[in-house]
C-alpha cells in the first residue's frame, strides 16, 4: 500500500493550549487524499472536471495518542494512504501525524464515490468508481470487504454504560466559509460545530455538573463521526447534545439535525475525553 508523506511546519493556529486542533487534522488529512490522488490517480480538479467523479464522507475517526504541545516540535509529519473497499464503492483514507519522535494522532475516513450528474452545480449520485479509475490502485489497495459501522455501537455502549449528565441544543448556520467548491458544507467544520455546542453547554452547566468541565479543560481522546446527508450553504442546522459520565470520563453524543423535509438527522458525532 502506497503512503505519501509531507511535513507541516508548525504555526500557532495548528494548536490550542490542549493540543493539535482537530479541525486542522481533518483539513490536513483531506489534503492528504488530494496529494495521494494527484500522485497516483489524477488531481482533484481533473477527478471532478474530467472524470466526473467526486467523493463524499460517510464516516470519520480521529484518535489522539500522547498529547502534543505547540513547543514540542517544529514540524509535524503526515503519512496518508488510500485504498478502495467494496469493489470501488467505498474509499478509505488513513492518516497519521508524527512529531517529536512519536505518533500524535491517527485518522481514518470512509468515503463514498459519487458520479457528478451536472458539471455546473456538481450535484451527484453515489456510484462505484469505474474500472478506468480503479485500475490506478495496486492490488493490495483494492479490497472487497464492507467497512463496519462504528458509531451506532459506540452510541449504544455510552448510553448503556454511562450516567447521563446534561443535554443541550445549539443552532448553527452554514455560511459559505463553512463550505467547499460545490456549495456543500465542508466536513472539516464538524469538530468546530460540535466544539461550539460542547463548550456552550459546559460553560452554562459546569457549576452544577463539574465533570462537564472536562469538555473545556481536558484534551480530546477521540472523535467518531457518521454522516447521513450533507448540509448545503445557507442551510440552518442544530446540534442536539447529550453528555455522559462513562467510568469517570466525559463522553458527548452530538446529533446534527435540521428541519428540512426528507429527514432531520444529518449525522452523529461522538467526542470522548
Amino acid at each position, binding site marked *: 500500500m502506497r503512503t505519501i508523506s509531507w511535513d507541516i511546519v508548525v504555526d500557532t493556529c495548528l494548536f490550542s493550549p490542549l493540543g493539535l486542533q482537530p479541525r486542522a487534522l481533518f483539513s490536513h488529512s483531506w489534503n492528504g487524499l488530494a496529494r495521494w490522488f494527484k500522485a497516483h490517480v489524477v488531481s482533484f480538479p481533473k477527478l471532478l472536471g474530467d472524470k466526473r467523479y467526486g467523493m*463524499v464522507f460517510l464516516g470519520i475517526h480521529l484518535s489522539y495518542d500522547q498529547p502534543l504541545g505547540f513547543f514540542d516540535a517544529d514540524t509535524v509529519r503526515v503519512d496518508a494512504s488510500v485504498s478502495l473497499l467494496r469493489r470501488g464503492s467505498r474509499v478509505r483514507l488513513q492518516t497519521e501525524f508524527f512529531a517529536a519522535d512519536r505518533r500524535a494522532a491517527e485518522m481514518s475516513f470512509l468515503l463514498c464515490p*459519487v458520479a457528478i*450528474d*451536472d458539471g455546473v452545480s456538481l*450535484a*451527484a*449520485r453515489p456510484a462505484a468508481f469505474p474500472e478506468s479509475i480503479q485500475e490506478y490502485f495496486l492490488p493490495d489497495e483494492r479490497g472487497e470487504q464492507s467497512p463496519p459501522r462504528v458509531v451506532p455501537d459506540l452510541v449504544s455502549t455510552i448510553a448503556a454504560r454511562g450516567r447521563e449528565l446534561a443535554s443541550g441544543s445549539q443552532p448553527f448556520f452554514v455560511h459559505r466559509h463553512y463550505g467547499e467548491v460545490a456549495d456543500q458544507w465542508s466536513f472539516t467544520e464538524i469538530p468546530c460545530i460540535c466544539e461550539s455546542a460542547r463548550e456552550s453547554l459546559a460553560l452554562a452547566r459546569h457549576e452544577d455538573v463539574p465533570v462537564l468541565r472536562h469538555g473545556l479543560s481536558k484534551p480530546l481522546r477521540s472523535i467518531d463521526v457518521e454522516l447521513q446527508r450533507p448540509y448545503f450553504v445557507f442551510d440552518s442546522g442544530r446540534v442536539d447534545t447529550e453528555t455522559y459520565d462513562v467510568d469517570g470520563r466525559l463522553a458527548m453524543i452530538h446529533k446534527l439535525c435540521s428541519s428540512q*423535509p*426528507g429527514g432531520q438527522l444529518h449525522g452523529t458525532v461522538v467526542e470522548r475525553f
Partner: protein
Amino acid sequence: MRFFLSGNLLRFSNYHREIDVEAATIYEGIFGLINQYPDLRPVLLDGDDEVRGVHRLFLDGQPLAAEGLREAVPSEADVTILTAIAGG
C-alpha cells in the same frame, strides 16, 4: 405554486429562496422557474428535459415520486427542491 430552493441551487436563482410560479403541474412549474432564472435549466434538467435524479422533490413536505411531476396540484402547493449530494 410556491417553489422553495436552498443550498447549491441558490446561486442559480440569484439567491431567491421562495419563487411563485403559475402552473398546473410541478413539471410545468419547473419550466416557469427556468423562465425566471434560466441558469437553473442545466442544473435542474437533463438533456431530455427530465428532472435530474440528483434532486429530491417534496410536495407540501412529502416526498414526490417521478410520476407525480405531471399530476395536477393545487395552486397553493408548496414544492421544495433539495440536492441530495454534491461531488465535493
